[in-house]
């Protein structure tokens, strides 16, 4: 499947890109993270500690063990600091 993968805040800065288009067979978010870490050291650094990250699937907050079936957009970002 083809996924739009978005990065925000320091995740975006560390990776150096706001988004990637990824061709993947990853079953879960965690599987996708493993694939992304293998792309380049800057990805590896950004995803080194997923406890410091949040993920949204099709613009809904989700967990890292969530399945990717049917998902089109995945976003990674640090804990939110609105308000």
């Amino acid at each position, binding site marked *: 499947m083809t996924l739009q993968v*978005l990065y*925000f*805040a*320091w995740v975006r800065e560390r990776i150096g890109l706001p988004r990637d288009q990824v061709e993947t067979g990853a079953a879960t978010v965690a599987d996708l993270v493993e694939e992304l870490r293998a792309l380049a050291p800057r990805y590896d650094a950004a995803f080194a500690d997923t406890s410091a990250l949040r993920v*949204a699937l099709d*613009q*809904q*907050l989700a967990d890292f063990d969530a399945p990717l079936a049917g998902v089109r957009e995945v*976003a990674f*970002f*640090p*804990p*939110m*600091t*609105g*308000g």
Partner: protein
Amino acid sequence: MAVRVQAKPFDTGAELAGFASGHKDVGAEVSFTGIVRDDTGGLRFMQIEHYPGMTEKAIAAIEAEAVTRWGLKDSLVIHRHGQLGPGEKIMMVATAAAHRAEAFAAAEFLMDYLKSRAPFWKKEVTADGEGWVAAKDEDEDALTRW
């Protein structure tokens, strides 16, 4: 019910002037306005990033829950993004209800959820450099009261 995510400034007073008008059963209106503080005197500006699309959906969902739980007659959320200087207004919420307890509770609920569940991220740019504002444990903990 209204949600606005915008780069341009807003005026709390002007927003409240037209808020919840025409509701005969509104006895209580609460507003909250968040402002860029400059405690140290060294802040140049705050840069606010967000996730277009998800932001509006997340806020609308939070607002819908507040309306249902506290029987709000009206509600408003405005949140800015982009570059904001010290003293500038970042965001506001307003709630209108029959009684004060509901209006206050709903406004606090909206604020607590906007802090930790709406996809905004703040970076502080000071004379000495820049850094992302870290999420606070107390903000996450605040959600447990709802």
